[in-house]
């Protein structure tokens, strides 16, 4: 696995095509790290000239902002923008819809203007440009349902890129009743990931997992490390972890290619 850092690139006088923003989950969460690696393997295979920030990366500030801490958010944003602009970054790709949304929508006013891509959009463009090919054989006949991450779907109106990729796998894409703009949240957004839920009669991820189970899928696909955690927990709670896998789109593609 080849993972150059921006610092190494700069030392060699090189400017990569795109910065891969790994994100906190992608860097530290055991489950999300697998998504990170799967995505890197695809980038390597497609010969994408990319780099990561490594130890120079820091939280985008999204959870702080959604929790109401605008001060901490802007501190994080300005620090990150200083680093990114220092490396003259033009293009960012990330596998986390929360990082994606923050970069795309909230950094520009603070001086951080980049072309920002969610990894599903980026993979789709690699495919369209012929830089990446997907052999679908492995998933033939499998039923895959896609859970729309709120910060990719409703927040940024991106519904098709992940679905287009799933369709390339020769699998059967089955939609949940609540999907696309009507998709139900997994329960992690708005900093909920980091706290206990308020008193209620059910956990949101259980409600959402039930939506997914109704489609009778072999695989629940997501495009967000937090959704992935929530849906994985939901599947465990339903005692279905031996039958149904929760996988990121990047993992699906990496698996299809035996990466």
């Amino acid at each position, binding site marked *: *696995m080849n*993972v150059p850092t921006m610092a190494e690139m700069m030392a060699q006088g090189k400017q990569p095509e795109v910065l891969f923003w*790994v994100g*906190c989950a*992608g*860097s*530290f969460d055991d489950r999300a*790290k697998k998504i990170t*690696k799967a995505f890197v393997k695809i980038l390597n295979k497609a010969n994408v000239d990319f780099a*990561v*920030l490594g*130890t120079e*990366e*820091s*939280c985008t*500030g999204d*959870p*702080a*902002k*959604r*929790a*109401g*801490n*605008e*001060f*901490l958010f*802007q*501190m*994080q944003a*300005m620090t990150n923008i200083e680093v990114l602009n220092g490396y003259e970054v033009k293009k960012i790709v990330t596998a986390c819809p929360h990082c994606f*949304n923050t970069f*795309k*929508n*909230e950094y520009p*006013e*603070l001086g951080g203007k980049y072309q920002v891509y969610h990894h599903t959009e980026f993979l789709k463009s690699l495919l369209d440009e012929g830089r990446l090919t997907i052999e679908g054989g492995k998933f033939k006949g499998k039923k895959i349902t896609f859970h729309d991450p*709120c*910060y990719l779907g*409703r*927040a*940024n*109106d991106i519904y098709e890129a992940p679905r287009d990729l799933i369709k390339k796998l020769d699998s059967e894409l089955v939609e949940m009743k609540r999907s696309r703009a009507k998709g*139900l*949240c997994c*329960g992690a957004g708005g*900093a*909920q*990931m*980091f*706290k206990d*839920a*308020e*008193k*209620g*009669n*059910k*956990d*949101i991820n259980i*409600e*959402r997992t039930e939506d997914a189970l109704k489609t009778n899928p072999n695989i629940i696909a997501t495009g967000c490390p937090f959704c992935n955690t929530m849906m994985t927990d939901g599947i465990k709670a339903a005692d279905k972890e031996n039958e149904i896998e929760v996988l990121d789109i990047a993992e699906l593609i990496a698996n299809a290619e035996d990466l």
Partner: protein
Amino acid sequence: MNYINNILFAILLVVGIGFFVINIKKLTRNIKLGKDIDRSDNPKARWKNMAMIALGQSKMVKRPIAGILHVIVYASFIIINIEVVEIIIDGLFGTHRIFSFLGGFYDVLIGSFEILAFLVLIAVIIFWIRRMIVRIPRFWSKEMTSWPKNDALNILYFEMVLMSLFLIMNATDPEFQTFHFGNPISRFLTPIFNDFFSEHSIHLIEQGAWWLHITGIFIFLNYLYYSKHLHILLAFPNTYYANLNVKGKFDNLEAVTKEVKLMMDPNADPFATPAEDENETPEKFGASDVTDLNWVQLMNAYTCTECGRCTSSCPANITGKELSPRAIMMKTRDRIEEIGKNIDKNGAFKDDGKQLLGDYITPEEVWACTSCNACVEECPVNINPLSIIMDIRRYLVLEQSAAPQELNMMMTNIENNGAPWQYSQMDRLNWKDE
């Protein structure tokens, strides 16, 4: 003596419209209690939103049954009101069906009004059945008891009565029934009246229906301000001034930007005395009361017609949490109304020891939100409950340091090591070799 009806009518007209104007003034004053926000950009996109969403009802029909029934009521309501012009002229000048000189065209007009009135009657009855017999859950949430529930029913009854009066008024007008063909519905009612009443009584019924109909319209007009029904007017400005950005973009607080820039400026003198005017109070972060919200958010609250589509799609509410986006809007409106009445009574606002946060909206509600934007997506008139929730969170965190303990830990981690968990920034690339 002959003029007594005309004078009575003129008084009714002046009182009806005058009272309405007073209420509209109160409404705009209350909305302006909100902070300023610039929504004058991109008029083209704004007009388009208004045309599509308010006029064209594009978001209403996303739930087809309620949507189509609503389109019937809404379109008919606007069209039938053309008839009010004739009623007003007749009332003021003592004429009878002044526009009937239009001949065939008049009959086509009144004929279509009759059909629309009949459709409205049917639609409103179905609405009532959905609410009271089918008991669709969103009409029975806990914020929909007492006044909100009665308010909704009052409006349905009002519409039923108004439409019936219009049809009765036509059915009991023998001249209209004889010489016109604009009576596709009322012609079926006329024989019933003829069977039971004398010619004289029928004339009295017609007069009565005519007066009750126009009086009812004026009462309804003035009921608006006190009801959830202001959306028939406010849906238009509300969709025009709604947020045009993608839903994921939350505003960056400018006051914070200034401070953060100052903190990060290596040339800033930390001991310099602030240049600002001593008397200037530092800007308050976030919102604890409605006057901390902006006027668009307050207009949102007055526009809300409590349909509950937001709440029925809210993941927190679906799973039994306290939070209901509709209740956020209703409570915001209740608090502005309270402040408005306070101003009416005292000339200027007199501290009542209350505020939106705590007395109306609890922190528990605010912290249950996942910021998923489902409520914003659902609202047929582009109300944004999420923006109010976020502003209250900001107040809780920035002014009161009152976030839930786990969130404080998360934020401390971000501050100390640049991640919401306790991992060292130096380990960020470890995954590569694992």
